[in-house]
């Protein structure tokens, strides 16, 4: 499905998401406030996005941006769902009740960014050892064991 059709479909079904829909690099994205993220995901799942492809986060300084990539077999389309999370209190509702696929992915985000997913059944570190300190993919992560690469370019 082309991205414009997808936008029309979203606008027809959920008018409040329509102004939040943006198209960038040929890909659709809906940026919602944090309170709306879980219900928006449920709405989009209702619409036909049956797969949660990816959960990740981006460190935007004052805030974290949490990014969900949704895929649909029936619509043959994919799109982003994004929300900003305050850095001081990073809490996001868990998507595990909608897609079990979120289970490990959210554990990974928790591990590497320290974002807490409320309602997650088993929120533990997944990639790093349990006693690891800090969350390495944050931009302010410091670790004296890292040797920075000399700047050749």
């Amino acid at each position, binding site marked *: 499905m082309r991205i414009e059709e997808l936008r029309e479909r979203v606008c027809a079904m959920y008018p409040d998401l329509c102004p939040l829909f943006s198209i960038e690099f040929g890909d659709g994205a809906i940026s919602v406030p944090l309170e709306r993220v879980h219900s928006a995901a449920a709405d989009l799942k209702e619409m036909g996005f049956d797969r949660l492809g990816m959960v990740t986060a981006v460190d935007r300084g004052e805030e974290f941006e949490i990014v969900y990539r949704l895929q649909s077999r029936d619509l043959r389309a994919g799109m982003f769902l994004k929300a900003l999370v305050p850095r001081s209190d990073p809490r996001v509702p868990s998507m595990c009740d909608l897609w079990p696929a979120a289970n490990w992915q959210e554990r990974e985000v928790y591990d590497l960014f320290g974002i807490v997913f409320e309602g997650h059944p088993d929120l533990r570190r997944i990639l790093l050892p349990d*006693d690891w300190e800090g969350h390495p993919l944050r931009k302010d992560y410091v670790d004296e064991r890292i040797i920075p690469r000399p700047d050749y370019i």
Partner: protein
Amino acid sequence: MAAIDELAEFLERTPGGGILLTTVDAVMNWARGKSLWTFPMGTACCAMEFIAASFSRFDFDRHGTIPRPDPRHCDVMVVAGTVTRKMMPAVKRIYDQMPEPKWVVAMGNCAVSGGIFYYDTYSVVRGVDEFLPVDVYIAGCPPRPEALQDAILQLRKKIATESISKRRTRPLVSDLALPTDPRKGDLLSAADADEEDEAPATRSVSA
């Protein structure tokens, strides 16, 4: 320890035993060199080349080198791949489970020095020689099976210089000083913390 230590001690005390000792050394070193059973400590990409090495085309069985999955039956640990901080205690433990005499081959740049994962990363151990006594280093990312073959031949040369007598062999692993370089960090305390053995029955082989 094995009967070989008593034999070596006995020969050293006996007048003229030194001559016998060198003969026994020559026989033992020949046997050990020709029968190097490897433990495939394959962690990453290099493990693929390790597999290729023992399969049809390269066939290390020709040299008497076969991979055995049980560390208790092995002579050489081939560390093939990146070792991370989470993996390191397991590697160390499997090395400890191997019976003496044992050797280590660091296969690939990651096992030699961290390789491409030397800079910028927080979780990679920069070379297995931070916690294991490495005998042969193979460069390459990953090294070709021929390079591994060369390493086995180099290791034979090295074994030929060893002796069953304690006075002549290299120090045991337990005598080696552990790294204290602050940059290398608290390698072994992290190792102990990770050994959270859930069950008493899992103690012996972590395999």
